[in-house]
């Protein structure tokens, strides 16, 4: 492996708030409670945190609102919002700042009460670049992903049954996660029989709409002797966005993962063959197929074969989305922080039962945001 030049960064604490339906919590209390739990797990005091990262539409300046609520005055602040992959990007930014010697302990958080507050489909004015899409009434983001799915089907012969495999596997993993929203198994036929939302995506091709928050604590290697957990090192990271509006996506079948995956894996000194467990953003079933292809786990058009026959389900050759993912565990609008949380727990070997991927040493986490707009990859490893 190629050693990075500066100080290494590792995730030393992770936690969720209550997830699902949380009428007893606010976006701020979710993040505060998750932060408290993550710092407690790491054995670090709040005052050690010198960098804050969060993203959300609940404040005009989310890190300012959050840090004030938590009682933190950071030396590094970053509210970058590129949708669901923001937190993978934040992890990369934190690792870079640690490597540069700017900070010692970074806090990444997320919170959302979108289910309880029913804020998901609030109309936004059709102005600036939105004036060329919003007036056509396509429900977003599902409509954008449906356009991509239709194109993938046309180019590669992918079918609704192929997409459904992803949802079926997610439910099988969710059965092993006591906190998952949906824990009952489903079949390919169930997915195809669920209501059509935007052709070809059915209801069960779509992620959940839940509440929930999370926190990730990242520490410089000088701090590792002080922490109570097994550090999970950030070996590599990459981020990009290819567009904002779906009509400006250069190719509906290739995501920014084609750039961020190779970038992160090259930085980490690993290849796709080294990945023991993958946490891949699953806003929709098509998101997973496109991402696997773009990351290079299989060739363009071959993701349908890659996921077929239970390969991504518990006991399969390619353990993926081991918490049940956004399709079955939880999906509070921007899901990316939960990908990091699950990957860290897998690498630490936190699970005593079937959910644990045996001997997992290297994990790949990939977030997708917006209308397939942003991509951010993080490669994590045990030390």
């Amino acid at each position: 492996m190629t050693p990075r030049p500066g100080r290494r960064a590792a995730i030393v604490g992770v936690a969720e708030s209550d997830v699902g339906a949380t009428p007893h919590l606010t976006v701020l209390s979710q993040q505060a409670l998750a932060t408290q739990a993550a710092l407690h797990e790491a054995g670090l005091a709040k005052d050690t945190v010198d960098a804050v990262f969060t993203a959300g539409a609940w404040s005009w300046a989310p890190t300012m609102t959050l840090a004030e609520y938590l009682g933190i005055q950071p030396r590094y602040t970053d509210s970058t919002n590129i949708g669901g992959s923001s937190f993978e990007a934040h992890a990369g930014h934190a690792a870079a700042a640690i490597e540069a010697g700017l900070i010692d302990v970074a806090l990444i958080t997320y919170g959302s009460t979108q289910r309880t507050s029913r804020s998901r489909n609030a109309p936004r004015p059709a102005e600036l670049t939105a004036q060329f899409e919003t007036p056509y009434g396509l429900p977003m983001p599902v409509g954008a992903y449906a356009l991509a799915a239709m194109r993938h089907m046309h180019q590669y012969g992918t079918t609704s049954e192929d997409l459904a495999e992803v949802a079926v596997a997610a439910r099988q993993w969710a059965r092993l996660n006591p906190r998952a929203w949906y824990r009952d198994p489903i079949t390919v036929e169930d997915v195809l029989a669920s209501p059509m939302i935007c052709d070809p995506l059915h209801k069960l091709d779509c992620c959940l709409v839940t509440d929930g928050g999370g926190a990730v604590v990242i520490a410089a290697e000088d701090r590792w002797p002080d922490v109570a957990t097994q550090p999970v090192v950030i070996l590599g990271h990459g981020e990009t966005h290819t567009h904002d509006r779906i009509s400006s996506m250069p190719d509906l079948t290739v995501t920014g993962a084609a750039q961020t995956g190779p970038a992160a894996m090259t930085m980490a000194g690993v290849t796709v063959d080294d990945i023991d467990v993958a946490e891949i953003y699953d806003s929709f079933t098509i998101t997973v197929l496109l991402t696997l292809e773009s990351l290079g786990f299989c060739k363009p058009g071959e993701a349908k074969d890659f996921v077929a026959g239970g390969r991504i389900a518990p006991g399969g050759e390619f353990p993926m989305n081991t918490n049940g993912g956004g399709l079955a565990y939880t999906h509070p609008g921007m899901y990316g922080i939960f990908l990091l949380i699950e990957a860290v727990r897998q690498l630490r070997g936190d699970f005593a039962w079937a959910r644990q991927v045996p001997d997992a040493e290297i994990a790949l986490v990939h977030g997708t945001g917006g209308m397939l707009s942003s991509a951010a990859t993080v490669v994590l490893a045990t030390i």
Partner: protein
Amino acid sequence: MKPVPDADTKPYWDGIAVGELRLQRCEACGEAVFYPRAVCPHCFGSPLTWFTAAGTGSVYSYTVAHRGFGDFADQTPFTVALVDLDEGVRMMTRIVGTRQVAIGMRVQMTVEQIAGATLPCFRPAPETGEAPEMGEAPEMEKAPEMGDAPRMGKAPETEETLEIGEAPETGGRAR
């Protein structure tokens, strides 16, 4: 939901009001540009000069929405597509006048009224005839670069064609 025209986009919407699809072309590199903007996203040159597009293209992808929100809740099912215009740019639109949509299908612009907004939509191009079977549509070759894009007159009168309520500004005509 009505689009909110601005200093970049007013000539575009003025064109739609008179049945013309106006795009920009970069004088520095010759590339057609959509949506309208101040600087070319390809070569970063300027100025960008308005011209009237042929209003023809082919379907790059589409979806039939079975859910709609707000103003669009009672319109389902409706077909939204990404159309590759023959000038080499892509835009979101609605496909009207048929339920038989396929990727690669040739389409032609028509101006429609959708939820109170006057919008460029597309219908099957006359020469297409029968729409091809879904999934078997041939890939359309990209149209060759057009030195001087043909001008379209007013959109043909049909029952679905917009009645122009607001008088267009003659000064906004494409050069």
